[in-house]
C-alpha cells in the first residue's frame, strides 16, 4: 500500500505524460463546437416548440370559436376574456424563458465564476423560472379544461351546463387530472430533480465542517 504522498507523485508523473500524444487541431475543434451548438439549440428548441405549440393551440382554437360562433355573445365574450387574460402570461413566459437562456448562454461566461457562485446563480435562475411556471400552470390548467368542456358542449357531445352539470364537470375533472399528471412529470424531470441536486451540492458547500 502506497502512502498518499506517493500516490500524488505517481499521479503527477502519469498525468503529465498521458495526454501529450493528442493535439487538438482546428478541424476537431470546429466539429466539437458545431456539435455543442447543435445540442444547445436542440435543447432550447425542444422546450420552445412544446410550449409555443401549446400556446398557439390555445389562441388558434379560441380564435376559431369566436369566428365559428359569431353572434353567440356570451360564448364570444368568454373566449375574448380568456385571450386577454392569457396574453400577458404568454409575454411574461417568453420574456422569462429568454432571459434564463440569455444568461446561461452569455459569452461573458457564467461558468468562469467559482463553483459556489455558479451553482447559486444557476439555482436562482432555474428556481425563479420554476416558481413563475407553477403560477402560470395554476391559471393555465383550469382555462384549458374549461375550453375543452366548452368545445364538447358546443359540438353537442355533452349536454349544456344548465341541463346537466355532471358530464361537463366530469370532462373538466378528467382533463384537469391529465394535465396535473403531465405537469408533475415535466416538473420533476426539468425542474425539481435538477434543483434538488444543485441544492444538495450548495448545502454541502455551506456546511460548517469545522
Amino acid at each position, binding site marked *: *500500500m*502506497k502512502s*498518499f504522498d506517493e*500516490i*500524488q507523485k*505517481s*499521479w*503527477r508523473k*502519469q*498525468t*503529465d*505524460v*498521458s*495526454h*501529450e*500524444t*493528442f*493535439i*487538438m*487541431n*482546428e478541424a*476537431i*475543434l470546429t*466539429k*466539437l*463546437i458545431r*456539435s*455543442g*451548438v447543435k445540442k*444547445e439549440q436542440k435543447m432550447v428548441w425542444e422546450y420552445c416548440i412544446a410550449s409555443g405549440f401549446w400556446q398557439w393551440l390555445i389562441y388558434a382554437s379560441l380564435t376559431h370559436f369566436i369566428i365559428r360562433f359569431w353572434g353567440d355573445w356570451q360564448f364570444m365574450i368568454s373566449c375574448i376574456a380568456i385571450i386577454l387574460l392569457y396574453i400577458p402570461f404568454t409575454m411574461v413566459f417568453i420574456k422569462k424563458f429568454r432571459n434564463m437562456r440569455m444568461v446561461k*448562454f452569455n*459569452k*461573458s*461566461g457564467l*461558468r*468562469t*465564476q*467559482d*463553483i*459556489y*457562485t*455558479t*451553482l447559486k446563480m*444557476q439555482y436562482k435562475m432555474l428556481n425563479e423560472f420554476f416558481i413563475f411556471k407553477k403560477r402560470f400552470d395554476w391559471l393555465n390548467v383550469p382555462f384549458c379544461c374549461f375550453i375543452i368542456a366548452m368545445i364538447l358542449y358546443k359540438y353537442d357531445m355533452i349536454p349544456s351546463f344548465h341541463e346537466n352539470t355532471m358530464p361537463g364537470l366530469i370532462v373538466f375533472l378528467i382533463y384537469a387530472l391529465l394535465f396535473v399528471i403531465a405537469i408533475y412529470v415535466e416538473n420533476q*424531470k426539468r425542474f425539481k*430533480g*435538477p434543483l434538488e*441536486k*444543485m441544492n444538495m*451540492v450548495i448545502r*454541502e*458547500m455551506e456546511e*460548517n*465542517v*469545522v
Partner: protein
Amino acid sequence: MNENLKNEFLKDLNRHTGIIHRVCNSYCSDSHERQDVFQEIVYQLWKSYESFKRESRFSTWMYKVALNTAILHMRKKSKAMQKEPLSDIFLQIASIEEPAYLKDDLKLLYAAINTLTDIDKAIILLYLEEYSYEEIAGITGITKTNVSVRLVRIKKKLEEKLKNQY
C-alpha cells in the same frame, strides 16, 4: 472569435488538455458520459475564452470552467442519457474512449475519487494538481479553513478506500 484568438485558444487548450481528461475521468465512470462532458467542457471554454482576462493562470481558469461544467452536467444526469453515437470526433481523441494509459494505481485512485461527492472530487483533484489551499478556495468558493478540514477527511476516506482495493 477571430482567427488570432482561435489560434491562441488552440495553443492554450493543447497545453492543458490533460486538465479536461482528468476532470472527465474523475466525474464520469462511463466512457460515453466522458465524451459528453469532454465535448461540453471544450465548448464552454471556447464560449468563455473571449472573457478570459489573463488575471489568473490559464490552467486555473480552465479548471473553474471544467469543474463547473462537470458538476452542472451531473445534475442533468438523471435525464435519460442520450446514447446517440458521438461521431468520428472521438475516434481521434482515443484517450477519452478508453484511458488505457492509466496504470493500475491511478485507475484505482480514479475509482476511489469517483465515489466522493461532487465538491470533494473538485477539492482533491485540485490538491493533487498541487494548487494551494488559497487557490482551491478561490476556485471552489469555499473558505480556506473549510478546504483544509475537508482535505483531511477526503484523504482519510481515499486512503481507506485504496487500502481495501490493494
